[in-house]
């Protein structure tokens, strides 16, 4: 393969990885960025989505069903966590401890149910195979679909947060819960709904992401770390910033893996440190 093609492949892989990171962080934008809730179990939600998806796909052989099951299971878990636990907590310290507790609980249960072998999900038939780009260049259809799908999520979330009444309520509620409640809005229900939505997104990312990160037990910490790095680089409260951060980190990781594989992980964090030295609050800083 010629050098230019190889480089294009690396760049395209970087974009795919970045878009998956965005999908992963999208739920956190809602939780942390919009609602100011620290959820350290986000990586566990993602991992659980992947495991459920793979299990359902193994039973039914249906990709769509696997995605729905992964989303549904994690969304329900998110609903329970918010409605019965997080809602009653006042400060971030308590949120940190509670969600850490769920990290341990979910990882032990997942180990019992699914064991410690990494699992991966085959793409559905209409997304299988390679597609030719240009003359001598092929790329998996599934990955291109993943990029397109993540872009859809980005646009959808942006419309939701910036252009709908509910989105405005969420943003206002993060600033001053009591004031919003005083306007006659049931902010608790809104928060539960949005947290559930964020969990759904984590589950979704978990299922579609098994092609990139195989579902395995060390995933919870690994994914949490990556998602938080992306958030920090992009700017926690900014959806567009997080997209830029995801692409930057995705590209740095794949380019780094290609040229200096041993230092790829370090390069990610090095890029992060560089961004933070220049802009401590991330690429795009939005005031809460």
């Amino acid at each position, binding site marked *: 393969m010629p050098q230019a093609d190889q480089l294009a492949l690396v760049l395209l892989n970087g974009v795919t990885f970045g878009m998956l990171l965005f999908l992963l962080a999208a739920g956190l934008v809602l939780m*942390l960025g919009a609602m*100011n809730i*620290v959820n*350290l179990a986000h990586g566990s939600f993602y991992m659980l989505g992947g495991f459920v998806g793979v299990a359902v796909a193994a039973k039914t052989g249906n990709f769509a069903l696997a995605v729905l099951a992964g989303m549904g299971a994690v969304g329900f878990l998110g609903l329970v966590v918010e409605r019965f*636990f997080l809602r*009653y*907590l006042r400060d*971030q*310290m*308590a949120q*940190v*401890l*509670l969600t*850490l*507790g*769920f*990290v*341990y*609980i*979910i*990882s*032990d*249960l997942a180990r*019992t149910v699914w064991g410690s072998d990494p699992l991966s999900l085959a793409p559905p038939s209409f997304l299988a195979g390679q597609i030719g780009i240009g003359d001598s260049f092929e790329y998996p259809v599934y990955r291109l679909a993943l990029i397109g799908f993540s872009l859809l999520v980005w646009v959808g979330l942006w419309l939701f947060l910036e252009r709908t009444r509910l989105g405005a309520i969420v943003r206002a509620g993060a600033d001053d819960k009591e004031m919003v409640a005083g306007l006659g809005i049931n902010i608790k229900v809104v928060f539960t709904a949005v947290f559930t939505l964020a969990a759904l997104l984590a589950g979704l990312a978990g299922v579609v992401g098994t092609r990139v990160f195989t579902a395995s037990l060390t995933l919870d*910490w690994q994914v*949490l*770390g990556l998602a*938080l*790095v992306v*958030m*920090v680089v992009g700017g*926690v409260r900014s959806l567009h910033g997080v997209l830029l951060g995801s692409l930057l980190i995705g590209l740095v990781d794949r380019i780094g893996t290609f040229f200096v594989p*041993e*230092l*790829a*992980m*370090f390069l*990610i*964090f*090095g890029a*992060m*440190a560089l961004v*933070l*030295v220049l802009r*401590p*609050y991330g690429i795009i800083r939005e005031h809460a």
Partner: protein
Amino acid sequence: MHRELLSGARVRCAAYVVGGVVVFVVVPQFISSYYVFVFTEILIYGIFALSVNMLLGYAGLISLGQAAFWGAGGYTVALITVQAGVDSFWLCICAAVVVATVLGGILGALALRTKGVYFILLTLALAQMVWALLSPWRSITGGTEGLYGIARPDLGLPLSLSSSLSFYFFVLVFFAVSAFVLYRVTRSPFGRVLVGIRENEQRMRALGYSTWRYLYVCFIVAAAFGGLAGALKVYQDGFVNPAYASLSTSALVLLMAMIGGTRVFGGPVVGAGVVWIIRSVVSSYTVYWNLLLGVLMVAVVMFAPAGIAGYLTGIGKRYGILEGRRRLQTLR
């Protein structure tokens, strides 16, 4: 001002000292070597949890990156003994503390530029950066396997630390000194300013305190003791690997402090004890010790948000065993 010999504060202080001596000096003489090992772990993690609680309980900063200093201390010891082949305990321990302190100075300067959620995420990300450097740097750090074969310290005295009990008492000395120093720090004017910053940073700034400088020093103190704990842990384990600096280590020490109680000085040690005792007792019956730990954390958050020690002192105060609320009431 003249204080009575048997004032409440002195009796309580004496009770804590006697209790501490019984638990940490007398009990270990009568337990199996496995439990001596567990007690050693409790003391080492106790120092570690006290260090993270300087930030958490006193300055009110949630740091998810304390493992960076634990790892820095640990790797310093391993690099000096294994890679450089210098077998000097005092050199190692001093170097470990210095390296952790310097690292604390660097990471603190970066992380303390932000507040709130950003600070949590930044400490995490910066510690991940340290962690990410350890595995690929195979020629020096031993890669993912880490470094092996670190012997128990040789003090150059006619005193062998090869038995687990003697090593335990050796660690106990470090624990007692660290706990004493940190206790004095929290009770000093410096510690009071930290609490003031935790409660209302704007007001402290209005009073003329350079709050950033106080937080920075606090971060560095926490880093130094984190490094000391990490160095002791390497002597306990005999090896070091990148997991020392991992996110889950940071999370574990944070949860020890929070389970025990962040607003009581000894809370983090109680937390370390509870976590280790659950781990050692439960793991011989079931493999689900993480599950149990998670359930315990959820229960603590929901039912005893002040942590176990905070909950107990709350009860003590309510029934007048401990001083506190009652005195306030009589003052009113």
